[in-house]
């Protein structure tokens, strides 16, 4: 089946720093989405981005479907950005998640 790999697995940053999270996938996909799981376990949609670039405040995402990767950018990090970031791809009626990037923002 399709493989979804995220990097880095862990990231520790000082508040105010910028970061880039990467998602690689092994085959063509119909769609891709980024999620944030907060420290309380709640999973929140960030971007639905099968291709192109989208921005929402300090967060933006870019997917290059032909090269099978997506990037999530977080600018001016805040402590509330801490948690785990997942990308998930849709193919063959299934949504497959990567293992996530755990982000720690230090005050």
């Amino acid at each position, binding site marked *: *089946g399709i493989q979804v790999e995220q990097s880095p697995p862990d990231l520790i940053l000082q508040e105010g720093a910028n970061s880039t999270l990467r998602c690689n996938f092994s085959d063509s996909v*119909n*769609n891709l989405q980024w999620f944030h799981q907060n420290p309380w376990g709640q*999973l929140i949609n960030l971007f*639905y981005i099968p291709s192109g670039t989208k921005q929402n405040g300090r967060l933006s995402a870019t997917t290059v479907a032909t090269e099978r990767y997506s990037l999530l950018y977080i600018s001016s990090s805040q402590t509330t950005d801490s948690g785990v970031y*997942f990308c*998930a791809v849709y193919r063959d009626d*299934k949504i497959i*998640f990567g293992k996530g990037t755990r982000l720690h923002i230090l005050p």
Partner: protein
Amino acid sequence: TAGITQAPTSQILAAGRSMTLRCTQDMRHNAMYWYRQDLGLGLRLIHYSNTAGTTGKGEVPDGYSVSRANTDDFPLTLASAVPSQTSVYFCASSPQGYAGYTFGSGTRLTVV
């Protein structure tokens, strides 16, 4: 508030016992999913249903069964629980295919 409701929030279950995790959505979404989340392994798809009356197997279906008698409900049953099924279980839904994906708040299950 519209969304997905999972029950129970948490449960301790004796090995060998059966249990059904409940998931109900009020958004009239066609597709529903069950995932388990384990430390270091991310979210893994257990079963899914693209529409009422149909179900499919995900990455880790063994030991679990599902049914989709109507649009709103998608229960997950463990027929005979084992300790390796200790996990956090998330239900999710989307309106069609893969768009507007929404998660429930999860069920924390401990099998002892």
